[in-house]
């Protein structure tokens, strides 16, 4: 046998071996609670997941296992074992990976995937096998229809309408206080989430008496945003609102600084709450508004940020990170309360009240209705300044230049 055939034989053997083990699945003793996680490690959404999704899973599993595991009803402690799959930001892969976790790996629970699209793609599978799907990173206005359709799906991050409403509310408030005029320049990234938000915002802004003086979209992946910012600036607005995604949130902010777009209210959506946003722009971010926000002053939140930094080596963001962590807490507490029976866990989540880093959570119609909608950078921290019924909001300040 020459080297080439030998190599091929080895490959064939590995291939056959792994195929066999794939079919048999991992059916070893279920001492730890086995939890599957599917989310992008590569592809367009991977960078976002690397900030808000994966580190929290790492943190939570670390904390649970460090204290010996989840404390079950019968007093025993069971550790958790996380089985991770990369769906490469491809819904077909998400579906397959969830199927694999459910039917081959036969895990006890599966964490909700990352992002609106991937979560909805996987929802029928979660529903079919009765796995609770506590989403932390999906925002949709179809909550009512979806929860009716999928009895085990839960929404926690909010709705596009609520986000748009709050932004309008803040702008109107600042306007009424005489701090800004009523002219708004609005831009959005031409991708599902950006389109939805812009679409929600238009009538809301109008009804609130705000005048939209500039309204343009730009494609995802635009490499030079200066024409947008120039255009917005030329419209001479009092407020700038961008329904943006991570790369363009950075790009728009950088460009606004360069062009001197000095509106007293400056809002960018996703990723404004990322620590890297502060790291990149430093002090000049003071007063920037963005999607999300937290109340970082509660002891629970303080502990969370400290632990996150210590365990994962990175700072958590100020929007989806703690929400994601909270969904893990919900799952953990439900398991501790009723065990690993998925039906019971689902029912428990629907009815019980949970103590989370976000404060007490109680689901109604499988959704959390009290959530932060707008945050603002104030002295190096991204405080929640508007919410749908949460307490602890900081007063909004106006931005004073870059």
């Amino acid at each position, binding site marked *: 046998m020459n080297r080439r055939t030998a190599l091929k034989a080895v490959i064939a053997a590995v291939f056959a071996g792994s195929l066999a083990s794939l079919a048999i699945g991992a059916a070893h003793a279920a001492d730890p609670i086995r939890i599957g996680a599917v989310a992008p490690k*590569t592809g367009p959404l991977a960078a976002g997941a690397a900030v808000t999704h994966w580190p929290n899973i790492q943190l939570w599993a670390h904390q649970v296992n460090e204290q010996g595991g989840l404390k079950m009803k019968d007093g025993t402690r069971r550790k958790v074992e996380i089985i991770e799959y990369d769906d490469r930001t491809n819904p077909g892969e998400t579906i397959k990976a969830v199927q694999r976790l459910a039917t081959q790996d036969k895990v006890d629970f599966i964490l909700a995937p990352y992002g609106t699209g991937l979560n909805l793609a996987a929802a029928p599978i979660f529903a079919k096998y009765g796995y609770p799907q506590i989403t932390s990173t999906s925002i949709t206005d179809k909550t009512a229809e979806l929860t009716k359709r999928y009895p085990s799906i839960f929404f926690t991050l909010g709705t596009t309408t609520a986000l748009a409403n709050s932004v309008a509310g803040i702008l109107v408030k600042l306007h009424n206080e005489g701090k800004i005029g009523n002219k708004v320049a609005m831009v959005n990234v031409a991708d599902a989430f950006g389109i939805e938000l812009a679409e929600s915002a238009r009538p809301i802004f109008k009804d609130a008496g705000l005048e939209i003086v500039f309204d343009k979209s730009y494609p995802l992946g635009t490499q030079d945003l200066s024409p947008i910012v120039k255009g917005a600036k030329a419209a001479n607005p009092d407020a700038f609102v961008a329904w943006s995604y991570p790369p363009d949130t950075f790009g728009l902010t*950088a460009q606004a600084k360069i062009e001197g777009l000095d509106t007293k209210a400056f809002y960018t959506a996703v990723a404004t709450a990322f620590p890297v946003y502060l790291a990149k722009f430093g002090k000049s971010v003071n007063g920037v508004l963005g999607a999300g926000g937290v109340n970082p002053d509660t002891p629970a939140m303080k502990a969370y940020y400290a632990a996150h930094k210590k365990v994962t080596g990175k700072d958590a963001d100020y929007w989806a990170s703690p929400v994601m962590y909270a969904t893990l807490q919900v799952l953990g507490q439900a398991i501790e309360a009723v065990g690993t029976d998925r039906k019971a866990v689902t029912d428990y989540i629907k009815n019980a009240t949970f103590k989370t880093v976000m404060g007490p959570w109680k689901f109604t119609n499988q959704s959390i209705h009290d959530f932060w909608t707008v945050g603002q950078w104030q002295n190096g921290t991204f405080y929640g300044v508007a919410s749908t019924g949460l307490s602890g909001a900081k007063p909004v300040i106006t931005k004073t230049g870059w």
Partner: protein
Amino acid sequence: MDILITGVLLGATYSLIAMGLTLQYGVARIMNLANGEMLVAGAFGAFWVFTTQKLSPFTSVAFVAPGAFVLNWLIYRFLLRPLVRRAKNRGMLEVDSILATFGMAFAFVGIMLLVFGGEYFTYSYLDEPVAIFGSPFGLNRVVACLVSVALCGLLYLGLNATRTGMALRAVAVDPAAAGLVAIDVPRMSTFAFALGGAVTAVGGIVLSTFLTMDASIGIVFTMKALIIVIMGGVGDVRGAIIASLILGLAETAVASLIDPGLTLAAAYLLFLLVLLFRPEGLFGRRQS
């Protein structure tokens, strides 16, 4: 005027993305789908220097450029040359290199994920306005434009005024005939591929001062580079530069005058139109 300057700045950005691929595809005849990953790796080098060493990101050229050169040299020598050898004609090599470099792109993303992690890397450098004809422009973009001009100028001179450059062009035109005039074709191809990789990585350094990147984003740059190289005409540095400028100006004009939502659509439309009227690209030669 604003549109013109913004367009030129964007065009310069694009030429940084595409210049390396022009060498790799034009001379070494490898349509390198892993080109964007090399750019991201270069960008990460700059990010690392800036955030951990607190140095100007441009100092990373010192290790990124030679590093990328050596890495690409090895890639060509050990991974691509076997394909060149076994290809019976140019079409086969094209298919094989598309497939192989597509696999490499995957592998590189995996490696970068291991080494850099999956987050966005973005930082602020020269992120300040500089006035040109009374309008503010990002200093980092202006610097990028200057670097691009310098790089393109060097490449153009190198290819047209030196003996090695002439040999590179000879290999691009007809590798078999190049061997007959004592040009060591495999070596020249390897050199062109390695040089292209280094140029791409340096481009990544410059771009990282104003673009947000992550480990998976390379494909975006690869696509843009491919379009520019094809639009300009395979293997022609001038063509790639002109195509970059045209794209930059067109995108900016559409964004400023019509609708920013249509910029990329306009870019692809332009690409189509160019190919319709000049199927061999702006400066390309018709295959006889």
